[in-house]
């Protein structure tokens, strides 16, 4: 007897239906079944943050969330966030500050940063550092990433 479940959800604004194994993680479903390669697999334990995606408006670990749990939900990956333009100033700031090298952490980093800017528009540098400590970067040493986020926070505050 097949254990597969029928699920349907919205991914980056589009309706998606599938029949999948309950054990399939959301991030694997997005990457392998929907070919959305933006979110990455790092540790598969929830620690590194490379798999971060948005479900129903909040960031979650795609490796600690089953695709079946997303049934009836609104899912957003970096691809959708880019298309909608919601991350434009953040992405520009990342480029200006050289906050990306290999890019592996960037998808998760940007989505995490976006939630910070939304929830704590007056975050201090220390708060920014604490918030993004859930996303590992092996290349940049983090300062450029923090600078980019602080840049956007102050630009928006002064807007």
């Amino acid at each position: 007897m097949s254990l597969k479940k029928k699920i349907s959800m919205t991914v980056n604004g589009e309706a998606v239906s599938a029949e999948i194994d309950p054990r399939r993680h959301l991030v694997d479903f997005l990457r392998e079944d929907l070919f959305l390669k933006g979110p990455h697999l790092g540790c598969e334990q929830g620690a590194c943050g490379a798999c971060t995606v948005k479900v129903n408006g909040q960031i979650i670990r795609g490796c600690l969330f089953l695709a079946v749990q997303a049934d009836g939900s609104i899912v957003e990956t970096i691809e959708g966030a880019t298309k909608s333009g919601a991350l434009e100033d953040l992405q520009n700031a990342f480029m200006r500050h050289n906050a990306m090298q290999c890019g592996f952490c960037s998808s998760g980093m940007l989505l995490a940063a976006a939630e910070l800017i939304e929830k704590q528009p007056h975050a201090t540098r220390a708060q920014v550092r604490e918030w993004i400590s859930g996303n590992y970067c092996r290349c940049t040493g983090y300062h450029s990433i923090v600078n980019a986020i602080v840049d956007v926070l102050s630009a928006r505050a002064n807007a």
Partner: protein
Amino acid sequence: MKAAQFDYVKPKTLSEALDLLVETGDDARLMAGGQTLLATLNMRLSEPSILIDITGITELKGISVQGESLRIGALVTHTEIEDSDLVAKHAPLLKLAVPHIAHRAIRNLGTWGGSLAYGDPAAEWPACSITLQATMIIRGPSGERRIGAEEFFIDLYTTSLEPDEILVATEIPIASKDQISYFNELARRHGDYAVAGIAAVAKKSGDVLRDCVFTFFSVGATPVVATKAQALIDGQELNDQLIKEAVEIARSEIEAIADLTNSAVAKQHLIGVLLERCLKDMLAQK
């Protein structure tokens, strides 16, 4: 690594979930936030044949004040606690603790009840629930029962919950006007498992602390309350000398257990460090 195969069911009501638990026994695992469970399954440290997702059960959600108690539903997420005005007002200790729990993405899904039911020695909520004298509300096939937080945590990853029971909510006496709180956690990196931690409250008037509770976590198999240090401080004018004595007593009354990060001797030392910081902070609080 990927989890082994399992079936998945999402009951709509608490009684449905309880019936399922009885039917499936140890072959099933309850899932709330899944932030610990899914990692465990990913590593195949557990291979249940079925996952019972309880996140659809509205009865387990919500934060409310009922009389003199703050009721927190088992499915309330760490983020909801972080954002709650009711918690900020009536159980400020929790607000102090929440930023120490992992990271935002985990907090968005992880739950109050999940952390309590799992009973990880390094977790924040078990210690906080003891400090705040929470009452656990549990439902099983034979109905509802209540148990105090201190009795609820029995041993390593072992709580009073029977295999066919579900933690439904907790009730915490709302903070009195003169209550102050202190929380601190030492970890190698922010968000890591605690190396040692303290969750403390006291009633303050002038420089005198009364009804103090100092609960230490990640130093033993369950959170540990420093009853002798509490007795020493209670009703006394707090000063450097008293703090020093309290630190010594706390270090001698608690028998710490080593873990992968620190020896028992190191943990013993850190108990004193945390209590000193706590008392100095409480002395300075208005």
